[in-house]
């Protein structure tokens, strides 16, 4: 056992910080914020999300707003994904890359219309990358003088409601029934006349939605959703369960599967790149990787036995050559055995048997298709 880190440092609080603490959450520093890692237990929160629904405070994620003529064109230059044809109510997943195709962040962009019929785009970025992305956007703004850019992160809160019962249970909570949205659609509605963005997106592999509300409304909306789902078994869940859930769904996490040394093709995110008939920062480098084929490939591994392989463990071919590293790994609460994602040299990526060096001990592992878990489709 190690000793607790007691270095004095202050962290930002989300608008729900007091709620988490009064609910007895265990708080940890994450990307400059103090965030709940768990309330009761990671495993019980994980199961609640798979079987009923879980609420996650994701207010630490950055929310960047683009208003005015040229917003589409600016974002189209910024993102690997086409934005100019994103209809109102549409949401897309894409990446911000540097000129070399290295991933600066993976993001969601939404095209929204306010009740007063004005349109804007909302870019949701990772908390750990927010400052970097804001700086990256600034020079672009000079080319698009009619665009008004604002960082809405601290004025708003973001709540993810994820699980098979999320939609049905919350049908009547807002003026607009979120179950009328298709996957990757969003719209602005309200609760008691207070605006709420509802987006049918998430990061758990379950159905459900994400909400953006004004910071001062956060606790009320959070409690309303929890109350609505009390009979159904809704629970608040922390970053611990969020990580095990996204890992089972094989969703990449920035800083693990993704970073500036990885391009979208290598990360296995071809679907999030529109390379044809458009230009964006990093396009040529990404197109070159696509035509030559990536040198590394993201794969799924099942470590034998019960000992989890964690991030950073070396992956070896069966003849003992180091051919890659684990990017995320741990026990899968749903499956009941350990799972891991790895980046390995492309020439070895089709092998079926591997070894993993788990802190000095070699352990066999077999390759498996990603994702590890896929929800039953209705």
């Amino acid at each position: 056992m190690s000793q607790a880190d007691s270095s004095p440092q202050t962290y930002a609080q989300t608008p729900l910080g007091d709620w988490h603490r009064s609910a007895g959450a265990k708080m940890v520093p994450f990307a400059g914020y103090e965030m709940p890692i768990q309330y009761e237990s990671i495993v019980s929160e994980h199961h609640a999300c798979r079987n009923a629904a879980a609420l996650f405070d994701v207010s630490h994620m950055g929310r960047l707003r683009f208003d005015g003529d040229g917003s589409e064109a600016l974002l189209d230059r910024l993102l690997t994904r086409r934005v100019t044809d994103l209809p109102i109510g549409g949401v897309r997943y894409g990446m911000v890359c540097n000129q070399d195709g290295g991933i600066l962040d993976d993001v969601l962009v939404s095209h929204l219309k306010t009740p007063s019929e004005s349109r804007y785009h909302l870019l949701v970025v990772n908390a750990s990358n927010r400052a970097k992305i804001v700086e990256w956007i600034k020079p672009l703004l000079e080319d698009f003088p009619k665009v008004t850019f604002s960082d809405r992160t601290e004025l708003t809160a973001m709540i993810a409601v994820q699980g098979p019962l999320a939609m049905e249970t919350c049908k009547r909570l807002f003026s607009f029934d979120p179950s009328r949205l298709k996957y990757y659609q969003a719209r602005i509605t309200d609760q008691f006349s207070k605006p709420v963005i509802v987006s049918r997106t998430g990061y758990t592999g379950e159905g459900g939605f994400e909400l953006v509300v004004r910071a001062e409304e956060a606790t009320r909306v959070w409690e309303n959703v929890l109350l609505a789902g009390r009979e159904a078994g809704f629970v608040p869940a922390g970053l611990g369960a969020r990580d095990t859930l996204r890992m089972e769904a094989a969703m990449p996490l920035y800083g693990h599967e993704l970073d500036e040394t990885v391009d979208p093709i290598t990360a296995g995110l071809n679907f999030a790149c529109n390379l044809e008939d458009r230009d964006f920062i990093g396009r040529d480098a990404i197109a070159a990787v696509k035509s030559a084929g990536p040198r590394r490939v993201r794969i799924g591994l099942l470590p034998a036995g019960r000992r989890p392989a964690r991030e950073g463990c070396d992956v070896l071919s069966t003849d003992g050559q180091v051919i890659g590293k684990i990017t995320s790994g741990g026990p899968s609460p749903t499956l009941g055995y350990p799972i891991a994602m790895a980046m390995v040299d492309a020439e070895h990526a089709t092998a079926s048997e591997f070894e993993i060096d788990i802190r000095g001990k070699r352990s066999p592992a077999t390759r498996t298709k990603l994702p590890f878990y896929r929800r039953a489709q209705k």
Partner: protein
Amino acid sequence: MSRDKSKLLYAETHEWVDVAEEGGQKIATIGISGFAIEQLNDLVYMELPEVGKTIDAGEEFGEVESVKAVSPLYSPVGGEVIEVHAELPDNLDQLNDDPYDFGWIVKLKIEDESALANLMDFAAYEKQCAESG
């Protein structure tokens, strides 16, 4: 057998030690505290040392793993591993209920007693936990 947690010695790193005389030898039984188990939460794996291995005081002798993280286990005393609790890794859920009896991890034949002087009694350990928790 029922071990009294208030009579054990504790390391800053949350291991407990029960020292007993057996046939003229001082034997240390080592486990991890109930406070630590509660903090770790959702245990999934434990790695034990091999019998016959000699471990220095403060050296890592195994690890315990929760869903979220791996925590090394440090030996509060130096000595030779004479027994390991082989059923424990397959019954980690029972550690929660019974950290001091069923939850013993290893027994060492003490070769270096000096480290015992650095350990805390229960009252001092409880104070450490209260301050960190």
